């Protein structure tokens, strides 16, 4: 899409923002299919389950939206989540051992997760921009590093949160406020803030400009390196927030935590209408993409129509169809 033609000259169908609506259309079709296949699909508890489940990938994917729109990629988010989760649990266990009150431990645990997320994001960002290395390579390396670190911290096993903390931390995932589970409030807040930052601030416009054409952005006196680094730091922060609601769920982390989350986050972003090459996209599409991804798994679990062995094939087909739908419309 180059310069928009004169509004009066185009038919009304061209003026509807299809790129924003088509991910929603895909989700709607999936919901209709789900409701037809299973009576329990639209039950309140199932809808809550699916939305809560999508919060992890959704929150991470908000950060991924920034990275991808700026023309980058981050393959390390799944491993980073596992590493931050493992460190947060070990940190809280250690502080409990020092005799700190549980409330203080929880607050410091959350601070620790945020600090680690920011640090991990900074590592990626600065290595990419200062080291002038392709983001694919840096974050692929980081993927291996974080994954190994969590396995090392866990001594090859599983890191479990001290039972004394469980009572206080559980409500972060299982509790709700005004009938809506806490993870959804946090997911919503991250989405709103992410959307405002991306679409309503100068920083956000710079992110788009860099993704569209980095050279032009540089000639326009946009601080390209700083903005790009910041997108990876935002990604790290989003991972930390996702971890803060992930840890209360099972109170454990291991080498198998967050495996392939990076691909799910990238898929959510692309399904949501953001271009993988950067320069265009929006946060709300990403949210829809994340919900759509967890809905696919849910529908497959609720029905026996399709053989278990084909689950991943169905997911693959739906992802491709969802993107095909919006590209076809966009033309």
């Amino acid at each position: 899409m180059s310069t928009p033609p004169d509004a009066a000259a185009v038919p009304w169908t061209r003026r509807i923002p299809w790129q924003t609506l088509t991910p929603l259309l895909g989700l709607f079709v999936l919901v209709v299919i789900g409701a037809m296949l299973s009576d329990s699909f639209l039950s309140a508890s199932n809808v809550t389950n699916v939305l809560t489940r999508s919060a992890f990938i959704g929150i991470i994917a908000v950060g991924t939206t920034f990275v991808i729109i700026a023309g980058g990629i981050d393959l390390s988010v799944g491993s980073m989540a596992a590493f931050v989760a493992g460190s947060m649990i070990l940190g809280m266990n250690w502080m409990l051992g020092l005799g700190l009150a549980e409330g203080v431990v929880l607050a410091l645990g959350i601070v620790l997760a945020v600090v680690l997320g920011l640090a991990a994001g900074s590592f990626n960002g600065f290595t990419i921009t200062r080291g002038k290395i392709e983001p694919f390579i840096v974050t692929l390396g980081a993927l291996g590093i974080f994954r190994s670190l969590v396995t090392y911290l866990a001594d090859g096993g599983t890191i479990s949160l001290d039972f004394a903390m469980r009572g206080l931390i559980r409500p972060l995932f299982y509790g709700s406020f005004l009938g809506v589970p806490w993870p959804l409030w946090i997911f919503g807040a991250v989405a709103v803030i992410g959307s405002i930052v991306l679409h309503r601030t100068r920083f956000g416009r710079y992110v788009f400009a860099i993704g569209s054409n980095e050279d032009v952005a540089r000639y326009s006196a946009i601080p390209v390196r700083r903005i790009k680094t910041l997108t990876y730091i935002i990604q790290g922060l989003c991972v930390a927030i996702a971890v803060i609601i992930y840890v209360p769920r099972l109170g454990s982390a291991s080498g198998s935590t967050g495996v392939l989350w990076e691909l799910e986050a990238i898929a959510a972003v692309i399904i949501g209408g953001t271009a993988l090459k950067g320069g265009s996209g929006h946060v709300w599409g990403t949210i829809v993409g994340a919900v759509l991804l967890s809905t696919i798994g849910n529908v497959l679990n609720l029905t026996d129509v399709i053989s278990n062995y084909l689950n991943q094939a169905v997911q693959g087909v739906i992802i491709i169809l969802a993107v095909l739908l919006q590209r076809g419309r966009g033309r």
Partner: protein
Amino acid sequence: MKRISILLAFLLASAFAWAQDDVVTIGVSIPAATHGWTGGVNWWADKAMNDIQERHPNVRFVINTAGSATEQANDLQDMVAIDQIDALVILPFESDPLTEPVAQVKEAGVLVTVVDRGLIDPTIQDIYVAGNNPEMGRVSCEYIADRLGGEGNIVVLRGIPTVIDNERVEGCMEVLDATNIEVLASEYANWNRDDGFEVMQDFLARFDQIDAVWAQDDDIAVGVIAALEQANRQDEMFIVGGAGMKEMIARVMEGDDLIPVNVLYPPAMIATAMEVTALYYVSDVPVLGEYILGATLITEENAEQYYFPDAAF
């Protein structure tokens, strides 16, 4: 004079080589700790190495962990070429791709012990140590069938699509087919806590009446428990996991209604294999052959002897 010194050097060198021969090097190749059970394998391999080396100073172990079948095949070449191993204890990542690499190790004159996942050609191995997957499924579902009195509704959470998983499920179904127990649904939970949680959430949304859950694996069972507690339905059913995770054994020991039993599929089998292989060199007792460990049903009565609080799993 020169000739004598060469001869002397030769004699010294061969004496040195002979002394070296006294030390037996056993290579141990296992998958990296990617989930709870393989984590347990790593922990037990380490422990067995220290124990055996302390008892027999002339036995030396070299442990390599691999992240993929290809990596494991490369490790084998290094073990033969660099470490010059006398024996190999291997828990193959996958059966097919590792059969040929292990056969080559065997051709180099190395004693081969295969653990858990059998090779395509069983003639390669000198010693075979394994858990019993069909038996594990059978024992699990016999308990479920007995406890439910032969009728009721159960859900099944499977592992990762592999031969191991198929054998366990087939072993279970043979038992259940002879009863009036209905398997409402079965889905893959990939031997993983998060997947266990999500799959069980969906089963709970889908079915109002579930009498028992066969989770097959203790990591999956951890997720199942969390899902039941969230839906507040933990009093309606019981869970049969498996593998012998210490937290689960502890619950069985305490007489937990939700986790009444566990079925053993011990990661410690790697230690069994290392012990047997070392025995071949340090004693005269016959050791070559196959060792199939039982899939013991762990109940409140016998749980204590399977509880290892220090283990990683």
